[in-house]
């Protein structure tokens, strides 16, 4: 299959051909020179047994960053290592840990990974290294550990691989069963540090505060080693997570081969409407020749639906000759572990040539070295982009990456401003451990673990007020200068560190049900899992559920509280996929602060966001045309969160236009623009924020809370707008028909732009944005002035066909007036 001469030569040639054929569609080509390694010989202090084990694996010397980490840790401090993928980051922590475990038989180490899969991956690597070192007793301890094996792990293991969720709910509340671990805990390893941003990171920071308390109880103070992919503030993030000073190791001493990066913007096919060629089809078209020449390729897509559609397209294009099946695989959350392991192995061993993944393969799962990365759509952050680009790369020899922009404004901004991208710092990892929602939940868990002593701080914070409050609520009881947990509940059970709901749906294939029953096997054909949050937009009845290119039609979805969460699907063959249509509404619950942005009124507070999948579109695979639709009846999903809202006063509106219809266009454009620009200020993903155009909440303070509790009034009293999502648009493009109609006919025309945290409870984004509104409005004005489109495009107010013909000029006028 591979052309003669081997893939190396082909890659350079094929990239050149891609650039030459694309003409103006390639907006940037950057070449990076190879880097030689910087080596340091193995220090004498390394235990000879460990040195031998390393040598037997071909490690004769250390890269400079590995030696640096060792040096920092020898001084007794904590450290964070930030070097690219495949730079030998794990040895930075494995070396000191194994050294400690070999020197002191009672010493213990705890590794935390964000996923069970990563822990398994690391277990395999460690076991390889530990083969000659019987002193090491390495075990994973997570939700998959069988109950009867847990006691043995607790007693035996001196290196425990786990995850924050397990530490939170399974280990800390039972610390007396882990006496041997906590009394001898020398190292805590936190890998993939960059994943602990936002709420998840705030939770982990509090779990670590609890870990510190328990360690203090047992008289230990472990050293922390963190490893992170590129982010702007690894040291700051690590210090906020751990609550102590952390040394930074960032100079990479590992070698790397030459690399080419190409930015590709699909050509415009309709200048009037600003429509470009569908980026998924373009990504498949660009990746195909590489795969046909046997070049190992990883393709990333931004959503699960986009990933499956791209996979199907690519399989059709490449796996055409018979005998070429399954050289291209898919990969994403929801695939069953067995399937995932098989794909990972296939990639490492070269049986799988290409993989189409969501960001699930962005993390450190070992899939060996690949030659080419194709990014279908801008991943949303600078950091993710570099991480995905880094998935293609070798110690020597050429690798390449191609970013194919979608028509989403951020994509368009990046692909047309490559200098901005290459000059930009990666995003900041922001966390807020003192977020009261997060903090109080963890205080309960902490009090359950050990009574609080009067005046005891949690992290750096005095929590006396909170403790008194919890006592008033009857959860704590003060006695003898301590605050004791006095509730029957097990607080960790009521607190999930992740925003995704706890219940996963299993997808069960019933195609062969009758046959299976005849064969008297009762084994159910579980083919995938879907998390709670995605379930309603992925496996609604009549949805086409795609898994590695195979199509299944959802027959039934069981979602009620008293039911097992199951989707029954049946194999089907159609030429379309389905995309959910979601209705949505936003309501203000409580106003925390208010101010005026020029002539606008702005407030910040608490919101209720309700969404409901009401139908779906059928989209044809090869043309991406809309070929039909269907209705769905599913309950509403609700979220309380923090948000800000900007109400445009009547005089501003009047000064801009008398035509309500036009004003609504302009306002929709403005909403879109603010939503898509805000992430640049907040260093967050555009998906971390939500936006909504609606009515102003009543003037006199917060809206009535009772209104919110009474769900029926929500459903009947207001008409929700309609948001549509398609893989091509990337994120929610509001068409807001309900709101539009309502705004047009409202007695008091008080349109209001809502921006809110897309996380239950909020993560401080809207709170910060409240202070950042002036520069955000300034940037909005600049963007509108600089955008060359005629009547709106995805890079400014949104595609003209989505927001209306007058959106751009009116949005510009509104921004100008709001800026004052």
């Amino acid at each position: 299959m591979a052309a003669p001469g081997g893939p190396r030569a082909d890659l350079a040639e094929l990239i050149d051909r891609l650039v030459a054929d694309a003409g103006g569609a390639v907006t940037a080509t950057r070449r990076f020179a190879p880097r030689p390694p910087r080596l340091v010989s193995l220090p004498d202090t390394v235990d000879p047994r460990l040195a031998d084990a390393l040598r037997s694996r071909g490690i004769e010397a250390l890269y400079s960053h590995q030696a640096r980490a060792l040096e920092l840790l020898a001084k007794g401090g904590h450290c964070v290592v930030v070097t690219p993928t495949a730079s030998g980051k794990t040895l930075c922590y494995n070396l000191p840990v194994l050294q400690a475990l070999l020197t002191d038989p009672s010493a213990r180490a705890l590794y935390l990974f964000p996923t069970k899969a990563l822990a398994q991956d690391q277990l395999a690597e460690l076991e390889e290294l530990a083969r000659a070192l019987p002193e090491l007793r390495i075990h994973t301890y997570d939700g998959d550990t069988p109950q009867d094996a847990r006691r043995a792990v607790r007693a035996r293991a001196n290196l425990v691989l786990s995850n924050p969720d397990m530490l939170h709910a399974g280990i800390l509340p039972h610390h007396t069963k882990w006496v041997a671990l906590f009394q001898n805990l020398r190292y805590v390893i936190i890998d993939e540090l960059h994943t602990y941003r936002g709420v998840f990171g705030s939770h982990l920071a509090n779990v670590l505060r609890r870990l510190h308390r328990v360690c203090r109880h047992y008289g230990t103070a472990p050293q922390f080693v963190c490893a992170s992919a590129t982010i702007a503030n690894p040291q700051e993030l690590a210090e906020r997570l751990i609550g102590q000073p952390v040394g930074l190791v960032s100079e990479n001493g590992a070698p790397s081969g030459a690399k080419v990066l190409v930015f590709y913007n699909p050509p415009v096919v309709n200048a009037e409407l600003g429509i470009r060629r569908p980026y998924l089809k373009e990504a498949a078209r660009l990746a195909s020749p590489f795969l046909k020449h046997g070049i190992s390729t990883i393709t990333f897509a931004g959503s699960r639906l986009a990933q499956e559609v791209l996979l199907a397209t690519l399989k059709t294009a490449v796996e055409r000759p018979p005998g070429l099946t399954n050289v291209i695989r898919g990969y994403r959350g929801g695939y069953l572990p067995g399937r995932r392991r098989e794909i990972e192995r296939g990639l490492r061993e070269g049986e799988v040539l290409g993989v189409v993944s969501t960001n699930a393969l962005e993390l450190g799962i070992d899939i060996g070295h690949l030659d080419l990365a194709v990014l279908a759509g801008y991943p949303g952050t600078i950091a993710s982009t570099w991480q995905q680009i880094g998935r293609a790369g070798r110690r020597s020899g050429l690798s390449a990456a191609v970013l194919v922009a979608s028509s989403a404004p951020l994509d368009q901004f990046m692909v047309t401003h490559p200098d901005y991208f290459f000059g930009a710092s990666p995003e900041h990892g922001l966390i807020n451990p003192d977020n009261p929602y997060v903090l109080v939940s963890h205080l309960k868990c902490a009090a359950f673990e050990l009574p609080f002593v009067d005046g005891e701080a949690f992290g750096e914070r005095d929590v006396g007020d909170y403790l008194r409050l919890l006592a008033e609520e009857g959860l704590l009881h003060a006695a003898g200068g301590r605050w004791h947990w006095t509730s029957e509940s097990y607080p960790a059970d009521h607190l999930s560190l992740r925003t995704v709901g706890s219940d996963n749906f299993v997808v069960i294939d019933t195609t062969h049900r009758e046959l299976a029953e005849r064969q008297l096997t009762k084994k159910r054909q579980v083919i995938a899992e879907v998390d709670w949050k995605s379930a309603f937009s992925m496996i609604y009845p009549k949805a086409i559920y795609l898994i590695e290119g195979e199509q299944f039609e959802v027959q039934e979805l069981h979602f009620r509280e008293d039911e097992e969460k199951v989707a029954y699907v049946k194999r089907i063959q159609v030429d379309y996929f389905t995309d959910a249509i979601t209705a949505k509404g936003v309501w203000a619950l409580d106003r925390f602060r208010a101010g005026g942005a020029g002539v606008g009124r702005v407030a910040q507070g608490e919101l209720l966001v309700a969404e409901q999948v009401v139908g779906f579109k059928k989209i044809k695979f090869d043309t991406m045309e809309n070929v039909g639709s269907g209705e769905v009846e599913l309950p509403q999903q609700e979220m309380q969160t923090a948000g800000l809202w900007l109400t445009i006063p009547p005089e501003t509106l009047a000064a801009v236009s008398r035509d309500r219809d036009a004003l609504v266009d302009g306002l929709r454009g403005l909403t879109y623009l603010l939503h898509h620009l805000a992430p640049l200020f907040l260093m967050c993903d555009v998906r971390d924020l939500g936006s909504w155009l609606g009515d102003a909440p009543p003037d006199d303070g917060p809206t009535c809370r009772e209104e919110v509790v009474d769900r029926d009034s929500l459903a009947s009293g207001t008409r929700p707008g309609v948001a549509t999502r398609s893989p091509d648009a990337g994120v929610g493009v509001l068409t807001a028909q309900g709101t539009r109609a309502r705004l047009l006919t409202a007695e008091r025309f008080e349109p209001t732009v809502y921006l809110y945290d897309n996380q239950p409870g909020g993560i401080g984004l809207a709170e910060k944005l409240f202070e950042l509104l002036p520069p955000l409005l300034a940037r909005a004005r600049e963007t509108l002035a600089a955008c060359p489109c005629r009547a709106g495009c995805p890079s400014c107010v949104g595609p003209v066909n989505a927001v209306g013909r007058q959106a751009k000029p009116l949005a510009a006028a509104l921004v100008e007036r709001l800026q004052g």
Partner: protein
Amino acid sequence: MIEESVHPARASELARLRELLRRLERRPPVPRRPAPPPILSLETIETRYGVALRRVEDVPLPPPLAAAAPPAGTLFLDTETTGLSGGTGTYVFLVGLASWDDGRLRVTQYFLGDLAAEAAFLAAVRDAVAAARQLVTFNGRTFDFPLLETRYLLARAPWWGGEVAHLDLYPLARALWRARATDCRLTTLETALLQMDRGDDVPGALMPQLYFRYLRYQDARALPRIFAHNRWDLLALALLAARAEALLAGPDPHHDPLEWLGAARWLERRDPTRSAGFYEAALGADRLPDGARTRAAWRLGRLWRRAGRLESAVALWTRVAREDPTPPLGLLVDLAKLCEHHVRDYAAALRLALTALGRAENESPPELRSLVLAALHHRVRRLERRLSARRASRPAASGPSAGVEGPHAP
């Protein structure tokens, strides 16, 4: 440009948080109430760690039982806790100990009256337990002991669990009485077997709330009910232990034959001879349900087989297989094996194996079905081979009968 309006940070944040917590907890705040006077008198005892609280009470036992004292030094133990989930935040607040003494049950209850005085409470319990030869609990192995161990570890006090012999009555109770009660909870068993009636005793599930109420409002009105509940538990535990002991002492006509079967089952590995005695007694009783009779015969036959009494086993099983229209598949297979390998009656063995095969299609558990069917097919084929080999080697003997055994044979 943006002016912040009123936000006096701290006070309003707390107010907000209070709201937030209410929402998190979704329950109304409880108003404080003045503390009523204590109702229950508790004795204070000195320990190295301070004062602990205790209450001693004698409970008279019914005369027929009074004689059935357990071995000297036996202490029955039952705890009340602030939750069932375990973990470090669950307190043991009442440890009841009972000794069987001179026709009465002496109940000593140690009470954690103040969470700050846990060390003294645990020390007092430790002192009380140290003298015991054996502790008897109901499900103590998985519930009371791990919780107590956690408390001692947290208090950095020595844990005595490994120093005293411990009999957990629960597994024995399950073996003995599973067939007689809907479940094997203490309260179910005491009603079914002892006809005990606790009157308006507070259910165990309410204990934590009563205790929290006491802690928070110094409301001691609930204490008598807590202590009484624990006393009932200890009484039931002691009486069940006595009944179990009496039951195991020998097939006693006062007991239900189903209980004999329980005892037989419990003793199978521990004392096969006595176990067989229980089975034989049960098979001789007329009050045994049919299914139970067949199963008892099957298990007795297995005991005999293990003891080398193969003929007895074959005779017993053959009789059962004749009397019971649907004996368990396993029994058929066991009997087929004995017929084949011991009696060497291949024809009988084949008949049994074929009957089993016919039923296994529908009756064997789905997850094992293919294995069971394969094993039976294998057995049937081997038996057929052996039968035909025997016919070939003894044509004179089997020839004529082989001629008769056609498909239309009568």
